[in-house]
């Protein structure tokens, strides 16, 4: 036993040390193994949960909406742009003394403390963390609030340094030019979604993308790391063809004209016939897109593309155009209108102007219904329909604006016996102002129809992504267009559109006055008109086509020549110098009186009232009243009945029809010679010679009421 004990006591110390060492090693191995096992468990099994927990502590998820694209005019002036604004909100969970805070906030925001306190308390009870106190404030106001709510003792990384208050960045759409081109640009609503005009039609391009991302913040709330899930793209900008200056002048002239004529509304379009670019598109009354909430929805409508109306006499251009282009009529020839009326399918169309044999130029200048109807009848239905379609009627023009109207233009199969006659003078057809402008631009552009457009290009970060290329179609020959331009010129020189004569420039155009259709009466209302003038300048090589349409003028003057032509003149005289168009005439403009214009065209019949004069451009009324009611039922509101016009008193005329026609032809031939003379001196000579020749023919020199010479 003792030996054994001795053996025990005499244990090898090295062995002991080794054993102890191994125990310690084992302990450490177990310890590290345990830690490792725990780590493996945490890192692998609990990875997602713990990672989310850690991220929640320091990471904020962000959702930023990029600024909406800018809308520019053709000279890069911003018509609509988005600005960064800030919304002041409260996090009720961070506010301890609600009443004290509310009093202080209310003092700064100039609001009632009780209201603010109620908002915060409501948020607190409903566990809301976002209570809006002041929405969409501009930077100046934000800075003022930050300064006023500064609490230096508070440790807070963001502004304002006031417990529980924060700023949220938002954007606000702004229109620096206020009402300028409001219907064209449109507006975007509170959610920054385009709701009208270009804002609506180009929503895809203009819309700012929503960028999702995250931000890591330290304990003081400072951002030390951030990233975005998607690549940030700059917003796309839309460049329009309109010029802010031309648009302003057009709007001013239109507003004045509408007020002067006491009209319900008005619209005007300025178009470049060569390129199809819309330089201005104005509507009156208008609205301010910055305060769109304050206006009724009817103000937002762009009537120039959305509304349709019976064009009246301006449509005669299509009638003559189709006949001349097909060689059905000779533009230098004459037409017999001596009867003063025409009967088509049992309907009688009277014409106070047409009581003689006259040239087509003159018939067009005095807006003769009989001449237009005869011309259309000689061409036939198919010819008329084909050309009207070629000019773009009954189909959308294809402009980049929302809610464009097709117009109403039925196929010949559904026409009535007198439909062709009615259509030839601009009834039984509905068009938009833009369609009509495009048709006139086709003639101005030597018969080539260029698709009108209002978007010039789309840009991104200054680079052009796409630009508009207009489609071109030859509708009538260049010769036909030249004849038609000459006819349009005659309207301004000696016809119904004398008020469209320009100072320094030659102009051409056509007046139109149509009765409006009354849906309640299911027929046209003789008290309501749509008066229009569509013209171009300079006459020989037009740089602009301007259309002016007035809805329901209620003053004494109601026809297109009296109401719309002066607006055309006002617009053209102001914009032509701006477009660097060289003056091609040197005329001192005389102011015509209302009585003077009809007398220049044709002496006013004795005892003719103002109303009767205004009716001069209207279609004749059907004499057969029983048939009229049947027709109105047939057309279901589209077909318009005509009011009978009194035939003029021939005794009251200054000259007989034949003599007047002869003199006009002589006058015309000399004018044409003067116009075609390449050498200025020759033209000047002709101009001087003309009065002498007229005197020799027994005619007096054309003079205005002031005794000044008229343009020759």
């Amino acid at each position, binding site marked *: 036993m003792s030996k054994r004990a001795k053996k025990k006591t005499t244990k090898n110390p090295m062995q002991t040390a080794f054993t102890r060492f191994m125990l310690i090693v084992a302990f450490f191995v177990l310890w590290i193994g345990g830690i490792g096992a725990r780590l493996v468990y945490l890192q692998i099994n609990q990875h997602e949960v713990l990672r989310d927990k850690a991220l929640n502590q320091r990471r904020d998820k962000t959702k930023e909406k990029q600024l909406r694209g800018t809308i520019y005019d053709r000279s890069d002036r911003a018509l609509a742009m988005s600005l*960064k604004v800030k919304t002041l909100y409260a996090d009720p969970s961070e506010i301890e003394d609600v009443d004290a805070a509310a009093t202080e906030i209310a003092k700064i925001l100039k609001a009632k403390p009780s209201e603010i306190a109620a908002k915060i308390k409501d948020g607190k009870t409903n566990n809301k963390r976002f209570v809006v106190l002041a929405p969409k404030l501009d930077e100046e106001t934000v800075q003022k609030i930050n300064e006023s709510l500064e609490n230096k003792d508070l440790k807070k990384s963001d502004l304002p340094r006031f417990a529980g208050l924060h700023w949220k960045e938002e954007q606000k759409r702004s229109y620096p030019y206020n009402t300028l081109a409001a219907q064209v640009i449109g507006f975007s609503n509170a959610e920054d979604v385009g709701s009208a005009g270009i804002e609506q039609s180009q929503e895809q391009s203009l819309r700012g993308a929503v960028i999702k991302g995250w931000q890591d913040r330290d304990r003081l709330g400072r951002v030390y790391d951030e990233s975005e899930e998607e690549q940030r793209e700059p917003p796309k900008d839309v460049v329009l063809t309109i010029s802010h200056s031309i648009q*302003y002048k057009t709007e001013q002239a239109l507003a004045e004209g509408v007020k002067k004529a006491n009209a319900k509304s008005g619209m005007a379009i300025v178009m470049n016939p060569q390129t199809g670019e819309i330089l201005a598109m104005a509507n009156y009354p208008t609205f301010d897109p910055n305060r769109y909430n304050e206006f009724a929805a009817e103000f937002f409508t762009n009537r120039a593309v959305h509304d349709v109306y019976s064009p009246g006499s301006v449509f005669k251009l299509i009638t003559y155009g189709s006949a001349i282009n097909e060689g059905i009529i000779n533009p230098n020839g004459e037409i017999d209108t001596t009867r003063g009326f025409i009967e088509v399918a049992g309907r009688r169309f009277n014409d106070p102007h047409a009581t003689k044999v006259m040239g087509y130029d003159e018939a067009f200048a005095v807006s003769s219904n009989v001449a237009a109807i005869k011309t259309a009848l000689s061409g036939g239905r198919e010819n008329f329909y084909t050309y009207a379609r070629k000019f773009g009627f009954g189909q959308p023009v294809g402009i980049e604006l929302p809610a464009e109207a097709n117009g109403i233009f039925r196929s010949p199969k559904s026409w009535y016996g007198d439909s062709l006659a009615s259509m030839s003078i601009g009834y039984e057809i509905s068009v938009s102002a833009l369609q009509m402008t495009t048709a006139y631009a086709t003639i101005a552009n030597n018969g080539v129809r260029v698709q009108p457009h209002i978007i010039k290009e789309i840009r991104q970060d200054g680079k052009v992504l796409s630009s508009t290329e207009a489609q071109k179609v030859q509708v009538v020959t260049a010769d036909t267009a030249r004849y038609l331009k000459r006819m349009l010129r005659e309207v301004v020189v000696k016809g119904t559109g004398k008020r469209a004569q320009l100072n320094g420039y030659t102009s051409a155009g056509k007046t139109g006055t149509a009765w409006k259709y009354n849906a309640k009466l299911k027929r046209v209302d003789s008290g309501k008109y749509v008066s229009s003038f569509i013209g171009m300048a300079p006459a020989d090589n037009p740089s602009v086509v301007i259309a002016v349409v007035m809805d329901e003028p209620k003053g004494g003057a109601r026809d297109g020549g009296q109401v719309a032509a002066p607006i055309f003149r006002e617009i053209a005289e102001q914009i032509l110098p701006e477009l660097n168009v060289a003056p091609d005439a*040197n005329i001192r403009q005389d102011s015509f009186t209302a009585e003077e214009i009809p007398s220049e065209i044709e002496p006013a019949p004795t005892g003719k009232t103002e109303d009767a004069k205004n009716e001069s451009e209207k279609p004749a009324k059907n004499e057969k009243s029983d048939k009229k009611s049947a027709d109105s039922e047939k057309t279901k509101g589209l077909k318009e009945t005509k009011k009978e016009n009194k035939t003029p008193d021939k005794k009251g005329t200054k000259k007989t029809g034949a003599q007047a026609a002869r003199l006009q032809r002589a006058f015309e031939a000399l004018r044409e010679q003067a116009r075609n003379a390449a050498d200025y001196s020759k033209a000047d000579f002709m101009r001087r010679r003309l009065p002498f020749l007229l005197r020799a023919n027994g005619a007096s020199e054309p003079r205005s009421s002031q005794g000044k010479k008229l343009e020759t």
Partner: protein
Amino acid sequence: MKKRNLPKKESREKIRREKDPIPWRYCLLTLICGVFLVGGFFVAARSHFASIDFGIKNSTLKKQLEDLEAEKRRLIWHKETALSPAEIKRAAKKLGLTEMTANNFQTFGSKIEEKKEKPLTVKNAPEKPKQLVEKTVDVKPVEKIGKNGVSKTEATTAKKEVREKSSTKAAK
């Protein structure tokens, strides 16, 4: 018995010195490694905090850039508002300028005609042109001689003198 395993007669100290020397190289190496390790930790910590610091600065700059861009937009907006035709018109009216309308708009031709007809006002009159012909001899205008052989100017001055003398006498 012969003890085979007996060590040779060598001093213990010598043996110790040979077998257990102080491993300076290893110590140094360990120290260097330790220094590297600690240094590494320091560098890592420093770069970590620096990255955080740079991150904070970066986000601050980014925020500043965004603020500046927003400010630029605001300034553009102010410029556009100030340059809008309505504002220009208002400013022009304040300055007393009149609007160009069809009534006061004139063509080139008519302008030229008016210029010819309209006499120049004193304000607009140009300075007198320099005399092209230099005077070489003093020239006096020829005076007309009356019937009594006295020139007209001399006669008028004599008359004036007589009138002045008579008026002074009357006063006395």
